């Protein structure tokens, strides 16, 4: 066992799965080599590395923008230099589990917008679907290329005290953060030269190549050089950096809604030499804003008439429109049933127990046990609008209950899950902090591919369970060992 200055204080949290330490306080095999490497580095050196990381992020402009009274402030997403390590066998399991889940979710989307077998057979209650604001009747009977709805998924995973993987959320609309997976790896290469190959860490650099290949395969026009664009809300979006990164890495045009126009049910981009037909749109604009003619009429981010071009199959849109019905938090509880129903398989990844507040008895139960519950909005994301029962005061709880009663369908509750912990380099010492994992799965005509890695988000505040960047979260490089 290695004990250098920055390790002496590491105290694994009781009753929490620690990624580095096993129960008897010994370092797990897959962390050995990294710890050995780190032990040889002085605190001074590690501080320098931390500094270098921060500088690299800043100068390379890897920032997100936070708006405050109309003025944009660029911030970096805090980065912890110690990688999070996943063994080959753990990854194998996660990969299989996500593929299984995604296969079922894709079948569900196709079904719910066509024959609705799953509703007729009573597997998913009809009112959960029909009351979901993201169930878009505009998508009914619309055929999408290769029947793929979810081309890009970010599945959020957490581990309980026994190390078992749970799915916390399926992100099937416009999952973000993949650029941090790529950038974090680039930074690690600079911080710890030669360590990656020594540890047999699998590469993540293929992500843009696979995504581009999949986008290309969706082109409705069978031409050698179809036009693929990345549709961004624009420079004020917090993920704008990611949009430019992905566009650059794939060599596709970064466009905004005002660059596109629909004519006779085909989409064109406005160029200095006239209109150029667009075949595939990787959009990072939400459904609601995508077509002001069909959805939110006040949208200035979308393209009027896009839905008609899409319906006619003249343009492919990634991810498909209407996916929100599958990653709604009220639908989430039925995903294991979907897997059984469509695939006739037992789900590999577990679901966190979820209470549907539209059901009176589950609502009562939740209210009675609110201190050990997390209550979430069914259509929320980014850690906004949540109630953390254990941390909220009485007034907050009362106010939140009132909100719930206005429209209980919009809320679910889950028991507070104890996320696993991983060592982080904080104030010159290694300290355990809670983490989650978001691998990115790409679904194309050849099947589902998951780049070995993902975004590990970390709650940098001691004791905190919220990993969202908006709530003081950071990230780590994520290593999957070969």
């Amino acid at each position, binding site marked *: 066992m290695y004990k250098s200055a920055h390790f002496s204080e590491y105290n694994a949290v009781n009753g929490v799965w620690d990624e580095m330490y096993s129960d008897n306080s010994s370092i797990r095999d897959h962390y050995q080599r990294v710890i050995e490497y780190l032990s040889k580095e002085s605190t001074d050196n590690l501080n320098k590395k931390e500094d270098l990381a921060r500088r690299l992020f800043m100068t390379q402009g890897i920032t997100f923008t936070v708006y405050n009274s109309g003025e944009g402030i660029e911030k970096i997403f805090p980065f912890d230099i110690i990688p999070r390590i996943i063994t080959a066998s753990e990854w194998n399991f996660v990969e299989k589990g996500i593929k299984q889940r995604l296969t079922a979710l894709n079948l569900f989307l196709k079904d719910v917008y066509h024959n609705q077998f799953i509703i007729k057979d009573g597997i998913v209650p009809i009112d959960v679907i029909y009351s979901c604001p993201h169930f878009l009747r505009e998508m009914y009977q619309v055929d999408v290329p290769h029947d793929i709805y979810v081309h890009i998924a970010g599945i959020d995973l957490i581990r309980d005290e026994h190390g078992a993987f749970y799915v916390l959320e399926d992100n099937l609309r416009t999952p973000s953060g993949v650029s941090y997976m790529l950038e974090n790896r680039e930074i690690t290469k600079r911080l710890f030269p030669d360590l990656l190959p020594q540890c047999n860490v699998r590469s993540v650099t293929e992500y843009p190549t696979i995504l581009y290949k999949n986008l290309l395969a969706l082109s409705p026009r069978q031409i050698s050089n179809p036009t693929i664009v990345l549709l961004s809300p624009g420079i004020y979006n917090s993920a704008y950096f990611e949009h*430019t990164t992905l566009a*650059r890495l794939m060599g596709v*045009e970064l*466009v905004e809604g*005002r660059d596109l126009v629909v004519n006779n049910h085909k989409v064109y*981009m*406005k*160029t*200095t030499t*006239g209109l150029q037909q667009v075949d595939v749109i990787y959009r990072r604009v939400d459904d609601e804003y995508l077509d002001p003619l069909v959805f939110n009429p006040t949208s200035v981010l979308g393209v009027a008439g896009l839905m008609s071009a899409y319906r006619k199959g003249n343009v492919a849109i990634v991810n498909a429109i209407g996916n929100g019905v599958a990653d709604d938090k009220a639908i989430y509880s039925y995903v294991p049933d979907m897997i059984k129903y469509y695939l006739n398989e037992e789900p590999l990844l577990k679901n966190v127990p979820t209470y549907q507040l539209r059901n009176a008895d589950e609502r009562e139960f939740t209210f009675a046990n609110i201190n050990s519950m997390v209550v979430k909005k069914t259509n929320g994301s980014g850690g906004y609008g949540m109630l953390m029962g254990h941390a909220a005061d009485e007034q907050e709880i009362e106010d939140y209950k009132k909100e719930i009663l206005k429209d209980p369908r919009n809320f679910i509750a889950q028991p507070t899950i104890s996320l696993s912990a991983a060592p982080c380099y904080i104030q010159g010492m290694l300290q355990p902090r809670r983490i989650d994992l978001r691998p990115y799965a790409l679904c194309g005509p050849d099947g589902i591919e998951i780049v070995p890695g993902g975004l590990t988000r970390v709650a940098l505040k001691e004791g905190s369970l919220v990993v969202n960047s908006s709530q003081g979260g950071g990230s780590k490089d994520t290593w999957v060992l070969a």
Partner: protein
Amino acid sequence: MLSRVAASFYWLSRYIERSDGILRMMKINYNSSQDAVREFTWEPVIRIYSGVDQELMRTLDNDSRSVLTYMVNDKSNPNSIINMITLARENARSVQEHITRDLWQCLNEYYHCVKDDGLVPRLQNEDPITALDTLIRQIMLYYGTAEVTMERGQGRSFMNIGKYLERSIQAVDLLDVKFGSVTDNPDLLTDTTYWKHLLQSIGGYELYLKTYRDGIEAQSVMELIILNTDFPRSVIYSVNNIHRYYERLKNESNLSSYRDIAFQIGKLQSYIQYSSAESIRQIGLHKFLTQIKHDLFAIGISLNEHYFANS
């Protein structure tokens, strides 16, 4: 190239060029205000960049420090440096994957220089010329970086068209305002300090001295600023460059749009080229300048329609 991207290149340059013009103007005018305490007025400068506004003139009260702060740091002034650089930077940000990282960093630095909390105190309490020089240097750095690093493609053409269009409009405005004052006050016509000052604000004093050996005369000043092809801030020099960079946009797929604007630029170019100090005097300087300005604006409008998809 996307129309919006082309438009961003064009506007990025126009804002940078305008900020350059304003800063140089501020510097020289401040300097002159130190020479001639009583007669000096900021009125023409304000008129060029903020129009005729009595209320504003009263508020600023011809106080150099107030004018400097207003022109550099006042967010309510649409043409203040802070607004110019913010707009320039936003345009650059939306075409970030089309410009070099070096250029982006230059702009970013310029932006942070203007946003620096120390700037206003320096303008108000210390030597303002030092403060203005810091900013002017940022722009020179920007132009150098653009020249050295930017790919020689369409983007750069739109950048240069924007730059020279803005520059020619500024030269025209400056002449119009300065000569306009002569109508009200004919004594100015023979006031050499007045003309020297004008030449300095546009950076043409030294060239003037080399070109015209018999002292400063209004007629020659006008000739230099409009017709001298070697003077980088003359109207004809800018229009020649608009023409030069526009020609590079010639492309098979939009020939009719191309010809339309090429004709407008060519016509304007010939109009100026085949003018002389004498012919301008016959037409009347104000009328002449008004015509040129009208044509420059028309070119801008046509670019917007044919290349920028009205974005």
